[in-house]
């Protein structure tokens, strides 16, 4: 709470600058000149060490029959597409042949999409409310409230939700074991990020753009649809993507809440690791990465449009 307040003091009281005014703007890439090669090398080396090499090793590992033996005759596709065989992997079939995995993958995608959609929508609406009321006590209060999930560890958050929704308490329905509960907890957990991106997207839109629409006779719905939403679409998309990606790989938050029916890919990795099937856990991770990257690309493509054209981005 203290750090949130400090952040608000620092960011909130400073004069904020609207970048999407009624005027256009031109982007100016900075020229690196001689630094170009050096910067490029640093970036490449960095990416190799933190990204390419670990992912490569992880992928290689999934083709090993016995973990840790890197010899050529130890290579196999058993972990990926092998029939169930009591001699290997405790009789577990290859990951791609396992119906449970496909169901989990579908659950993960569904959860990530729903969560991203609701979170991004809430983020934009919260951002609007916070920016409009900037300086008032209510606005500060709402902003702080949206931040609280940020400081609570995921696993503790899951525990709280278990006790809240395990059985019907007053108006709270019993949601344990339902998919809805996973969505609710994920949305709440990601609200800090999306409200942040909602606030920054809203801050960039000059208030007179909405006022001009008011004077032109546009009602609330028309203003949102034609002015506010198109102009904050990049904020919405980035909130959506961020939530989509983090929800896909979120483990600690949902580990206590998933049941047989609501298994997710992330919780499947946990199950494989618990059963000493590291190679298969790695396959699930690769699947996760592939789904996430593909989703990211598709959403990113869909999110582009007239806005980028109009704003010259």
């Amino acid at each position, binding site marked *: 709470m203290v750090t949130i307040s400090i952040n608000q003091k620092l960011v909130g009281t400073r004069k904020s600058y609207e970048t999407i005014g009624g*005027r256009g703007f031109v982007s100016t890439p900075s020229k690196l000149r001689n630094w170009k090669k050096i910067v490029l090398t640093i970036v490449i080396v960095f990416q190799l060490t933190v990204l390419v090499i670990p992912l490569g090793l992880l992928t290689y590992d999934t083709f090993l029959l016995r973990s840790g033996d890197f010899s050529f005759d130890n290579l196999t596709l058993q972990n990926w597409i092998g029939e169930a065989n009591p001699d290997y992997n405790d009789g577990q079939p290859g990951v791609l042949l396992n119906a449970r995995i496909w169901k989990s993958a579908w659950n993960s995608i569904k959860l990530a999409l729903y969560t991203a959609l609701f979170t991004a929508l809430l983020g934009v609406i919260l951002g609007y409310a916070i920016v409009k009321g900037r300086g008032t006590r209510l606005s500060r209060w709402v902003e702080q409230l949206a931040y609280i999930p940020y400081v609570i560890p995921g696993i503790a958050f899951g525990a709280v939700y278990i006790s809240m929704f395990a059985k019907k308490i007053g108006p709270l329905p019993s949601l344990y074991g339902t998919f809805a509960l996973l969505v609710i907890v994920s949305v709440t957990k990601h609200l800090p990020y999306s409200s942040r991106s909602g606030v920054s997207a809203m801050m960039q839109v000059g208030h007179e753009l909405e006022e001009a629409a008011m004077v032109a006779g546009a009602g609330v719905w028309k203003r949102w649809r034609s002015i506010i939403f198109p*102009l904050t679409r990049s904020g919405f998309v980035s909130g959506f993507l961020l939530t989509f990606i983090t929800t896909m790989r979120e483990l600690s938050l949902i580990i206590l809440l998933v049941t047989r029916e609501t298994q997710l890919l992330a919780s499947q990795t946990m199950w494989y690791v618990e059963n000493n099937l590291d190679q298969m856990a790695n396959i699930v991770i690769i699947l996760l990465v592939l789904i996430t990257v593909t989703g990211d690309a598709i959403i990113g493509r869909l999110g582009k449009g007239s806005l980028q054209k109009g704003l010259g981005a």
Partner: protein
Amino acid sequence: METTITIKNLTKNFGNVMALDHVNLVIEPGTFVTLLGPSGCGKTTLLRCVAGLEDPDDGEIYIGDQLIFSHAKGISVPPGQRNLGLVFQNYALWPHMKVEQNITFALEIQKMPKDEMKKRVKESLKEVQMDGFEDRYPREMSGGQQQRIALARMLAYRPSVFLMDEPLSNLDARLRMDMRAELKRLHHISGATTIYVTHDQVEALTMSTRIAIMKQGVVQQFDTPDKIYHFPVNLFVADFIGNPKVNLLDGKVSGKNVVDIGSFTIPVDTSRASGEVVVGIRPEDIAILEHPEPGTVEFSAYSVLPSGADSTIVARLGTTELTVRVMGITKIKMDDKIWLKFDAKTLNLYDKESGNLVSCNN
């Protein structure tokens, strides 16, 4: 399109700051009224209250016969239903829409037929001399062009009231001159009652039918540019209007129609004044002579600043400093002896304590 705007007892507070303090104005149909004052005087707040973007804490506003705001009766007509157009300081064009969409936005809301809309877009672009710009995005145009589009957007739906919030202050000096002429012309053609907010006195003096000078939420004077310039009702207005600034001299009424400044006296009508007063003299109302004459006062030229069309001379006598303005390039040089002549008919006399005008010889 002849619409009166009546503002009664309008009051607006922001926290402890009184932005509008019981403002009363009647804006005659078809006039061009400027709200002028230093920043924070409440001029923009007043405009926003008329537009409906701000709800006052008290008072009433009428546009024509329609009561559009009343605190007592709980009426606040939404901005879109007040039949007014608003031009913003930073244009406020919607950056994700082309010029055409920017203009048709309001027309679509009014459910205007497509071909009528097309006609209106063409007409309004022509009126601001921007024909052929339908397919541009705002960022593809210069500031001046964007402001013209903002004007076209307002003209297209033909509101009976134009509201403008410092529309020229983001433009460079030269463009501002052109746009002034353009705006005055547009007002002349459309006949729409116009409220124009600015802190630029030249803009106000050159364009307005009447000017309302504001300070701390109070209208100080609401009058024609001529009256505002020549007969400011108080020291604030006198000091605010005019460049170079008016000369304000502290003095005492020392006899019938004589004010003692200290080192010299000035002839002025003192029939309604007594005691401590301030004499207001516009720099161009002082005559400079190169030889003494009866009724002149000897000064020395402290500084001479010719600027082509006119010259400004700073004259000194002891600690008294006067700014004098003469037409053309003056022959006077620095440290020359000069003799100043005051014309009682052009002087204004203010009460020192209240700062109010007590006599103006008109």
